[in-house]
C-alpha cells in the first residue's frame, strides 16, 4: 500500500479513517502483535520523515508537489464560504497528484489534492482550477485534530 515516492507499494497499513464524501482517508501502523514484520516495515518507512503540520487555508499562494516528486509548484488558493461551510479551490491539478498535500507559504498542509478539472479545446484537454479540495482542519476527524501536531502547546 505504501512506499517512498516513485517506488512500488510494499508496506502494509491499517485504515483508521475513511470518508468517501470529503475524499479523505487516514492510514496507520498495522497491529504490531498480529503483523510484527509489517509493523516494523511501516516504522522503517516513517523513520526520519518529518510530519507535516496542519493549518487552516487562507486565500493566497500555496504549493503542490509536482509529478516529479521534487519540485513544489506554486498554486493559487481560494477559500470560499458557502452555506455548507468553507471550500477551497486550487490551480490545475494533474492525474497522479491525488493525495498530495497542498501547503501554504509556510509549508503547513492545508488540504490535499482530491479533484481535478479540465476542458476540451481544439481536441486537447486543458487543465483548469480545481475544487473543492478537502480542507484538513475541517474534514479530519476530531479525535485526530484535537491531539495532532499543529495544535501545539507552548
Amino acid at each position: 500500500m505504501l512506499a517512498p515516492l516513485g517506488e512500488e507499494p510494499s508496506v502494509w497499513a491499517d485504515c483508521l479513517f475513511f470518508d468517501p464524501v470529503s475524499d479523505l482517508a487516514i492510514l496507520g501502523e498495522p497491529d504490531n502483535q498480529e503483523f510484527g514484520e509489517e509493523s516494523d516495515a511501516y516504522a522503517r518507512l516513517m523513520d526520519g520523515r518529518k510530519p507535516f503540520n496542519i493549518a487552516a487555508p487562507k486565500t493566497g499562494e500555496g504549493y503542490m508537489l509536482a509529478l516529479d516528486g521534487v519540485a513544489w509548484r506554486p498554486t493559487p488558493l481560494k477559500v470560499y464560504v458557502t452555506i455548507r461551510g468553507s471550500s477551497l479551490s486550487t490551480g490545475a491539478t494533474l492525474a497522479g497528484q491525488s493525495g498530495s498535500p497542498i501547503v501554504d507559504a509556510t509549508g503547513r498542509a492545508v488540504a490535499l489534492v482530491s479533484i481535478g478539472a479540465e476542458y476540451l479545446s481544439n481536441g486537447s484537454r486543458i487543465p483548469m482550477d480545481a475544487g473543492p479540495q478537502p480542507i484538513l482542519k475541517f474534514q479530519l476527524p476530531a479525535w485526530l485534530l484535537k491531539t495532532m501536531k499543529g495544535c501545539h502547546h507552548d
Partner: protein
Amino acid sequence: MRKIDWDKPLYHVTSARNLKSILRNGLRVCRDPGFDKVVYLTFDLQIAIDHGGNFPDPVVLEIRLPHSWSLYADPYIGGDECVVSDKDIPPKYVRERLAKSTTQYSAKRQADSVLTVDKGRGFIIEHRTLFDFGNGFKRLRRKLVVTASHCLPHPPVMPCYSYQETTYQKFACPAGGRTQCMGGLFIL
C-alpha cells in the same frame, strides 16, 4: 546528550502572541496537565525554524544560559540537537532572534514526507496522544498517512470494529487467485 558549548546560543520557537509575555516574564515550563513540565530548546536554528510551522505566527527566541544551568536530553525527540530545561528561564537570558517574516519554511525539505499510496499519494502527519505507560500518562507520538480515499483500492469492510475485522489477509495473491478481503488493512 552531547557536550554543551555554552558560548553558543540555544533556540526556542513560539507564537508571536507569546513574545511580549516571554520577554517580560521569561520562558515558563509547560503547565498543561499530562505534558512534561519543561521548556524545549534546540542547538540547531534550522530545527527551531522548521518547528515554527506549528504556529500561525512563529518567532524564534535565542537563549544564552549560564554554565551552571541544568539541561537534559529530550526524551521524546531524542538525538543530540534538542534538550529540555525543567526550570523557568528568566527573561534576562532570552531575546528575539528572528521575526515572523524570516521564519519562512522550506517546503522543499518535506518532499520525502510525501509517499506513494497505491496509485496515488499520501503524506505524513503526526498524531499526539496521552497514554498511560504504567507510571502516569505520557505523550505518545505516532506517524500517520493522510491520503485521498479514492486512492485506496476499496473502502474497508464494515463495521471495522477491531483489527481482526479490519484486516486484509493476503490481499496480494497469485495471478488468477481470489483475494481474501476482511477489512481495512491493505497491501499491494
